[in-house]
């Protein structure tokens, strides 16, 4: 979208909500709607059924963003053709405003077969890994005939091998393939906090401002034109670790990162992710309004 047209959009129109089963009926019956709805692609695979029917009904009135968790873009065993077929069929049906997935792997060899871990496992930030993921992103984009947005992870493991930092890896992926980046600010914050705790233990107070500075530096390394979407979410604190569980309101440090991000990149489609312990829809809408307010306040 050109800059003059961007300026005409209301802040609210940039902000979407994850739309999950407990809120299907409420929205379809006329509850206030955000700027777009995000659903998990895999929940709508299959030839038909109630879930797909509900989604097709929603798409008549709301822009839909398809967010995947299972493409496994970084798998050394390759993409699953079945998965790509299912996604392509869904994209053709829904005509979403965005299609996204993660910079992760899930598929791999186990006991003589190829399994899917149903989780977002980290890949090493190596040239080999980048070449592989770039070829898979290109394969997906060629099939879907649209750009993919690729999201940074919250990771609880890291590989010793690396040729790049995470952000260098992702920016280079975007440069090579033309894909967008889906920047999850909660994941950035969770990773920064957990890295501190791994290094210093939990007894040493965390330098909140210092950790935010680490994440801001990450954001500064991303060219604005690469940013397709921003994710905001809550996390759980087990006392030792932060877990990206999407089960609470967006935390203040993540709001601070959001204000920084939009002041640097300008307005970007922004999603409030809330997947566990779902609150009433009105609470999600409050989070969306808060995001729109921050966007209005901080975007250049």
């Amino acid at each position, binding site marked *: 979208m050109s800059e003059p047209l961007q300026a005409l959009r209301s802040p609210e129109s940039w902000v979407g909500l994850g739309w999950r089963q407990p809120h299907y009926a409420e929205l379809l019956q006329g509850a206030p709607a955000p700027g777009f709805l995000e659903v998990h692609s*895999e*929940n709508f*695979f*299959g*030839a*038909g*059924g*109630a*879930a*797909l*029917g509900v989604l097709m009904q929603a798409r008549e009135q709301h822009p839909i963003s398809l967010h995947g*968790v*299972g*493409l*496994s873009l970084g*798998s*050394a*065993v390759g993409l*699953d053709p*079945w*998965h790509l077929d*299912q996604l392509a069929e869904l994209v053709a049906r829904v005509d979403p405003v965005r299609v996204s997935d993660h910079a992760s*792997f*899930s*598929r*791999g*060899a*186990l*006991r003589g*077969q*190829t*399994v*899917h*871990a*149903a*989780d977002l*496992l980290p890949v*090493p930030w*190596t040239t*080999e*890994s980048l070449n*592989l993921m770039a070829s898979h992103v290109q394969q997906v984009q060629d099939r879907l005939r649209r750009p993919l947005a690729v999201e940074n992870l919250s990771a*609880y*493991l890291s*590989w010793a*091998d690396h040729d790049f930092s995470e952000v260098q890896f992702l920016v280079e992926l975007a440069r090579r393939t033309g894909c967008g980046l889906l920047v999850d600010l909660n994941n950035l914050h969770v990773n920064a906090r*957990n890295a501190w705790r791994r290094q210093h233990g939990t007894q040493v107070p965390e330098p909140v401002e210092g950790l935010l500075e680490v994440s801001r530096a990450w954001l500064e390394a991303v060219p604005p034109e690469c940013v397709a979407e921003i994710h905001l979410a809550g996390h759980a604190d*087990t*006392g*030792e*670790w932060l*877990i990206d569980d999407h089960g609470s309101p967006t935390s203040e440090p993540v709001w601070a990162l959001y204000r920084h991000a939009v002041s640097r990149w300008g307005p970007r489609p922004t999603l409030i992710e809330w997947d566990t312990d779902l609150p009433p829809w009105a609470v999600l809408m409050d989070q969306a309004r808060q995001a729109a307010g921050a966007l209005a306040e901080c975007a250049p």
Partner: protein
Amino acid sequence: MSKTLLEQQAALLAALWSPATAVPLGEAGLPAYQRNARAVAERALAAAYPVLRQCVGEVTLAALARDHWLDCPPLRGDLAYWGADLPDWLGRLGPEHELPTWLPELARAEWVLHQLATAADALPEPGTLARLVQEDPDQLRLALPAGTQVLVFETAVVSVLLAHGLGDGSVEPTAEALQAAGQRLQAGEPERAVFWRQGWRPRARLINAAEAAWLHALHTQPSLGAAMHWLEAQHPDLDLGTWLQEAVAQGLVLGVRDAMAH
């Protein structure tokens, strides 16, 4: 492809699937992923097998989900497809698990309902029924919903499913229905049932041998006329007029199409 990356990823998966690598709660890293896998497995099985869950309880289902995940990892990136092996896997469990002997058959029946939930949609075509009195049945066939199938069970597990409202959550099982299903289970009565989808709702009902044969004929014979001839020879007592009326009302027959349109 470099062997290194393949091996790195395979090594991580092997660690995730090795119970021996589990470490106490509260530590992140590998256990964070293992805990998530357990939670995901429980949710996935509970969604696919709601009646089985009610029969064995939350704690047992959680244990089954954890063990099944370790033995039969998902092969697809859509967890709705994980659990297909559960019936056979349950059948291989030893008596030390103290599970009902009919549980594998219940799982087999419930997986069919789970699959029907995402079968292709189809709308009733009531306007086409008039063709039954206007045209040669050798040129026609009855259209049934996608995924419709007839299954035979050695035990009364369909009665158990029906007593639980097929697990769709809208029906609370009554004590009478549960007692009747329990009696049929104890009596060791085999059951036949047809499974189909009416609108968005998976359905099942018990059928007799004649109706099972008729549904089989509709599926295998080249036309409605051929199926009727076959039924006449095998089960002349089935009243097709009454059957058709009920089947249309229940969404088991959608309409009438050309025999060549298979």
